[in-house]
């Protein structure tokens, strides 16, 4: 089945859900799972396709969220315009950080640590500035309307996030069959070999970081309209960075649908955990930690990889499911 058809089918199957799901809770749950699928797709493009493992993706999420929140509060900017500017601001942060990091040839764990450090530095800065509301955070005024991206009905957010997930899927599918994507995967596999046959690894990684940043930043902008509140811990804390990387790792790194599958699996498990283990704060993080260790040890290719292996065992001769 062609990728475009798979994506269309997925979106078409998901779209009527708000009309079917009666409970507010489950609608919110599905919306949140889709939201983390979108954030995970952003990480997947950089790490799954580009091999650059960021441990501080909150840097982009938070920059987008703060950009739109500050523009709305201080300048009265429309949230939809804020959404686009948030993507642009996070892309710019990605390009700036990438320029520094890649210029000095930092790879692998050094890249991961530098992104983590930048996210922390931004958190400290956001904590101490007046314009970001400091540690108290920012309250975005409530103006329910489609025009302000604060949908009166919860289903509005569902459809917005679903559209973004669809966009992320299309972008990733394009990556798999474009020159940029081919170069990005070549850099992931072997940077020197890629350079030897004409790939500008520096520019390729920089573009991937900016693109990934734009997606994460736009996710931040949507988050602000959903919760109408932002503080440095939410924006730049490790929580979002972990959510961003867990979904694709659990679902399948470098696969188009991996982040979606991973986000639903993770949040399903987290929900079951809440029912089974009670509501102790931070418990979901413990669960995530255990899950991450198990995934990396036993299923390094994620749920998609597991599916492929099982299919191959059941149907010898199937090579690429």
């Amino acid at each position, binding site marked *: 089945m062609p990728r475009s058809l798979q994506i269309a089918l997925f979106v078409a199957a998901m779209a009527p859900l708000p009309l079917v799901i009666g409970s507010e809770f489950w609608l919110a749950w599905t919306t949140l799972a889709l939201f983390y699928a979108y954030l995970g797709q952003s990480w997947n493009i950089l790490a799954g396709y580009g091999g650059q493992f960021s441990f501080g993706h909150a840097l982009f999420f938070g920059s987008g969220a703060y950009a739109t929140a500050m523009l709305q509060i201080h300048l009265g900017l429309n949230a939809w315009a804020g959404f686009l500017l948030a993507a642009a601001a996070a892309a710019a942060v990605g390009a700036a950080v990438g320029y520094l990091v890649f210029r000095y040839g930092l790879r692998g764990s050094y890249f991961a640590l530098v992104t983590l450090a930048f996210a922390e530095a931004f958190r400290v800065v956001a904590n101490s500035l007046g314009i970001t509301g400091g540690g108290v955070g920012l309250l975005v005024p409530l103006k329910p309307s489609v025009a302000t991206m604060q949908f009166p009905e919860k289903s509005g957010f569902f459809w917005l996030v679903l559209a973004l997930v669809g966009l992320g899927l299309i972008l990733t599918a394009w990556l798999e069959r474009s020159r940029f994507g081919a*170069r990005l995967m070549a850099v992931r596999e*072997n940077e020197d*070999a890629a350079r*030897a046959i*004409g790939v500008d690894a520096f520019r390729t990684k920089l573009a991937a970081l900016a693109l990934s940043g734009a997606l994460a930043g736009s996710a931040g902008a949507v988050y602000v309209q959903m919760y109408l509140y932002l503080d440095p811990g939410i924006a730049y804390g490790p929580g979002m960075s972990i959510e961003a990387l867990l979904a694709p790792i659990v679902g399948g790194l470098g696969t188009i649908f991996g982040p979606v599958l991973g986000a639903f699996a993770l949040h399903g498990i987290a929900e079951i955990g809440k029912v089974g283990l009670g509501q102790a704060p931070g418990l979901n993080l413990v669960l995530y930690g255990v899950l991450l260790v198990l995934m990396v040890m036993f299923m390094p290719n994620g749920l998609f990889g597991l599916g492929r292996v099982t299919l191959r065992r059941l149907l010898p001769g199937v090579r690429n499911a």
Partner: protein
Amino acid sequence: MLDVIGVTKRFGGVVATDAVSLSVPAGSISALIGPNGAGKTTLFAQISGFVKPDAGEIRFEGASLLGRAPEEICALGVVRTFQIVQPFAGLTVRENIAVGAHLHRRRRREALDHADAVAERVGLGPQRDKQAAALTIAGRKRLELAKALATDPKLILLDEVMAGLNPSEIDEIIPVIRAVRQSGVTVLLIEHVMRAVMNLSERVWVLNDGALIADGTPAAIAADARVIEAYLGHGAASAPAAAATAHA
């Protein structure tokens, strides 16, 4: 076409290449030989922009290559292969070759079609849907060649594409390299397989301890006393002569 002029590179106290000068004419196949550690691969790394020379000049079609990044040098038409093969292991053979093909082809379709054509040229046609990681060593050597060829180079630097191959595999790849030259690509190869060097090259340079010690036709090189000494040790060149006298 390629002019290397007095290129010197030191790593600490070791002189990897010592004022090496050579000049490769367009349309030729030439070889760079020498014992292990002679500086052959370091010279390739300097031509292709991976290592910066301490002194000297490298020109390709009159333009200096010094200070240019590997990808820029590749775009000018000089491409290298790696002695230790560097496939993109997680990609298929076709996708591997397409990365090179994309240098001058933006569209995916064109790059894949070109990759198929190059795969045929090097004899990887039947294996193009395989993962690169699943190839045998002979297959990986061909892939290394194919990735480089797909960039439409004017000059290709082949670093031991025959090392690790068995004699029949070597016999198979010699005509492939000859066909590369026939298609208008100049070839400079590093090789230890003397049968291939003798068979293919019009001109041979011999490096030893970083310095050029001889150059000429393959036949002249094989008879050169300095070359025999470099390979077999001091005094080796006079030994056959002495042995011949003793028998007489």
